[in-house]
């Protein structure tokens, strides 16, 4: 048996069910490794003591019918967890302990999982490098001083560094897929409405989706099966019949039509990304898929559209952090002064930048030119995909236009930072499912990902295509454990 922490979710659950491993052993192994991995800074808050207790409790009365029997899991610190501090990576929620549980995390615990702790992320999920977190950078286990991507950077790093078997992140414009791509892991953003948003600290409500982040596609299907559910507490949750994703997982993609959108060949795209994409196409062909050139004509407008819609919603969603009811408060002589001091001191620069953009685009006199126009363009982007999906079953693109970059490299250049999401953002705007799988490496040996985009509610199909490609690609993440301390 290989080292516990390097095992996949599938292996761990099998070993537990076959009583080869106990929940206590597994939990302890991950905690021990975490204690030696502080340099990565993946945890904002750990739940180790309680996790040990819970694992013992599981072992004393195990239920092997559950889908995550006694499996310890760390989650992004954007999910509200009952009794465990939830910060959203922000000073303004530094002292916030929810009295309630998000639906998605509740789904994990209901299937036997145990909370290991809360993982670092960009402040309010705004960022592509985990550098906007109040709790500091996260190191990418792939290489020192490399960003893990964002906003689910703590999550991607934790999976890649074997600090949690799997995790869940949230994806508003690429926050699951981009960090997965940067760390050589798998990340899936489900169809909008698939996973409940109840209890997830909101960034941009019409775009936010929770999703699995895992070592491989099979684990991804197992986790999606647990977290995706209809929830009456979220009015945008959709009631549809969800697949048994792990049971129905299949490498047989013969005859599947896969679209290649010409607009994703952007200027200055590194050759290695171009090559990666070509390889992906040929693997798909090898699997019997049919490759079809398609056009998504409004792709160019996706990023500017996103950077109007998302900040607009965020500016309103973040108004509740005012120092009145919970979280950080900086006292003032009067209400306005308290607001100003609380929000100036409580929010970081990137969050403030987006609140200002959002406030501006919603202001009277600008609303029509920005917000309303962006909503119209969003419909056009959606229509592009509708049209494409009348011809193809899925779309294959690179996940990101580059591999992981150095910490600090782009912090003073927001636009270049925003460009990271150029391939992922359109999928959120269209509400579609998308998955990033590791597909190769660049000249520095840093991982690169490919993205498979599906029709609404067609997660099974993109999981199957990814499963088939994963097999052909046979990616190996060589991570040296360079950060470990004694």
């Amino acid at each position, binding site marked *: 048996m290989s080292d516990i922490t390097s095992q996949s979710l599938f292996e761990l659950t099998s070993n537990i069910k076959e009583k080869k491993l106990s929940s206590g052993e597994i939990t302890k192994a991950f905690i021990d490794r975490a204690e030696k991995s502080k340099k990565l800074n993946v945890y904002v808050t750990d739940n180790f003591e309680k996790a040990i207790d819970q694992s013992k409790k599981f072992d004393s009365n195990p239920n092997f019918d559950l889908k995550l029997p006694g499996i310890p899991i760390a989650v992004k610190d954007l*999910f*509200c967890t009952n009794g465990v501090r*939830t910060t*959203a990576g922000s000073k303004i*929620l530094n002292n*916030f302990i*929810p*009295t*309630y549980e*998000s639906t998605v995390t509740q789904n994990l615990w209901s299937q036997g999982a145990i909370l290991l702790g809360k993982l670092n992320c960009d402040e309010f999920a705004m960022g592509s490098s985990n550098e906007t977190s109040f709790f500091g950078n996260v190191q990418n286990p792939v290489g020192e001083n490399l960003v893990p991507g964002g906003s689910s950077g703590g999550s991607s790093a934790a999976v890649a560094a074997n600090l949690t078997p799997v995790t869940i992140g949230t994806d508003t414009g690429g926050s699951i897929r981009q960090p997965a791509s940067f760390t050589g892991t798998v990340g899936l953003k489900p169809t909008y409405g698939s996973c409940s*948003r*109840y*209890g*997830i*600290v*909101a960034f*941009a*409500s*019409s775009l936010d989706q929770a999703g699995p982040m895992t070592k491989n596609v099979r684990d991804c299907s197992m986790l999606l099966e647990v977290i995706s559910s209809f929830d*009456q*507490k*979220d*009015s*945008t949750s959709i009631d549809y019949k969800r697949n048994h994703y792990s049971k129905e997982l299949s490498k047989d993609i013969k005859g599947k039509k896969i679209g290649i959108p010409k607009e994703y060949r952007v200027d200055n795209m590194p050759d290695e990304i171009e090559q990666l994409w070509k390889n992906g196409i040929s693997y798909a062909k090898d699997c019997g898929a049919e490759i079809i050139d398609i056009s998504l004509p409004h792709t160019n407008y996706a990023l500017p559209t996103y950077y109007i819609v998302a900040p*607009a*919603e965020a*500016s*309103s969603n*973040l*108004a*509740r952090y*005012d120092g*009145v*009811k*919970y979280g950080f408060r900086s006292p003032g002589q009067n*209400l306005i002064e308290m*607001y100003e001091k609380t929000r100036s001191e409580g929010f970081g620069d990137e969050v403030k930048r987006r609140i200002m953009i959002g*406030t501006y685009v*919603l*202001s*009277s006199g600008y*609303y029509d030119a920005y*917000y309303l126009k962006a909503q119209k363009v969003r419909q056009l982007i959606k229509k592009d995909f509708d049209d494409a999906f009348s011809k193809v079953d899925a779309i294959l693109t690179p996940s990101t236009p580059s591999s992981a970059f150095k910490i600090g490299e782009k912090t003073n250049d927001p636009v270049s930072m925003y460009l990271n999401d150029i391939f992922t953002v359109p999928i959120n705007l269209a509400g579609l499912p998308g998955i990033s799988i590791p597909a190769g490496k660049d000249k520095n040996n840093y991982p690169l990902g490919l993205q498979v985009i599906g029709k609404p509610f067609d997660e099974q199909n993109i999981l199957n295509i990814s499963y088939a490609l994963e097999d052909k690609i046979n990616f190996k993440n060589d991570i040296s454990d360079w950060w470990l301390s004694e």
Partner: protein
Amino acid sequence: MSKNSEYLIERENKQYEVIIGLEVHAQVTSESKLFSQSSTKFGAEPNTQVSLVDAAFPGMLPVINEFCIEQAIKTGIGLKAKINKKSVFDRKNYFYADLPQGYQISQYKYPIVGEGKVILDMPNGQKEIGIERLHLEQDAGKSIHDIDPNNTLVDLNRSGVALMEIVSKPDLRSPDEVNVYIKKLRSIMRYLGTCDGNMQEGSLRADVNVSVRLKGETEFGTRCEIKNVNSIKFMQMAIISEANRQIDLLEEGKDIDQETRLFDTKRNETRSMRSKEDAHDYRYFPDPDLLPLEISQELIEKIKSDIPELPDEKKKRFIDKFNLSPYEATILVSDIETSNFFEEVIKNSDVKLATNWITGELFAVLNEKNLEISQSPVSAKNLSKLINLIKDGTISGKIAKTVFEQMIDGDQDPLIIVKEKGLKQESDPKAIEELINKVIENNSDKVAEYKSGKDKLFGFFVGQAMKESKGKGNPQLINKILKEKLNG
């Protein structure tokens, strides 16, 4: 409307007309709030009816309360208005301590109810007031500034309670019309059970838009909005004061600034709250947490079929079926409790007498004791018994008033009072004849005068006979027998 009833404000040979539009905020009658399951009960301890959604905790999401939607549709139907099958909830963004989300969920561009109308019964005829729209929105909490000397306290019990904002067209022209309009609106909603209309508890408040123009002008003047007035009396005072302020400005050759004003009830004047330049930019946009609201025709039909008879229809029925005057009918239908009381009384008794007794004696008692009809000291059952005693001649109308005065004390049965006090009317012709004989005997001089042509002495004899009967003599019988005796 006839000319002389117009409400005009005079200034040196000039007459100004006052234009009024109302935005009424009516609390939806509902057990729970618009987007959460918290109770809406009035008067609870501060912050005891607050859910995580109402207090805007991170990750909390609004879920629409379908009952409130049905209540809004019902109200829309009651206002003879168009129900919009698709409407949208928007966020109205502003910061305030008692607004936990930092935005109010409201409806901006696409309200649930469109144009409708309300008919006012004015002394000189009916007047139609147009309804512009009705939309649903959340109430805010309450900031309390006068308990702690150093801090403002916040009570979120009201936070998230469903309100209907009913916007009238600028069709109102006088404080009297405003009075009748508010009462009519309240009456309709109380009939429907969609708002209790309780102004003391803040269930009904209004923003009042006022402008003035010279009589005969067709263009509207610049309007000012007076925020959050919570009684009809204050609305009327605010309108008069604000209209005069505007006219004074015009008379001095000055312009009126479009602004939001507050009414100071102590000084009976409005003062500026914020100018147009300072107006909030609410940055309305569709709430991404809520899907557009879609209402099926089936639901509308179902609600329509549940709509009770409303004041206008009831009034028509009362006039047609019971032959009431429009004035009587208007009074009786103005409040659902009153009309229910009336209909209860007339189940077993005479309509004409019931109308007179309810609008006369009973209303007088209620007024005097400051009671609602639901708290009436005399039940409909006992009042109808009393009316029957009059109708069948057991007691006279005059005696009935004495009996009624006793009934007030603990809703006593009039039959028992009449029996115990021996108030039964004397209707035996023999007994009447006897006492009339006595009167004729004792007043032979007057009889002589009468017979010689002094006809008006007849009343004197009736009075004497009544006196002789200690008020219990049947007046019709006394009349009849007296005539026979004196003329025979």
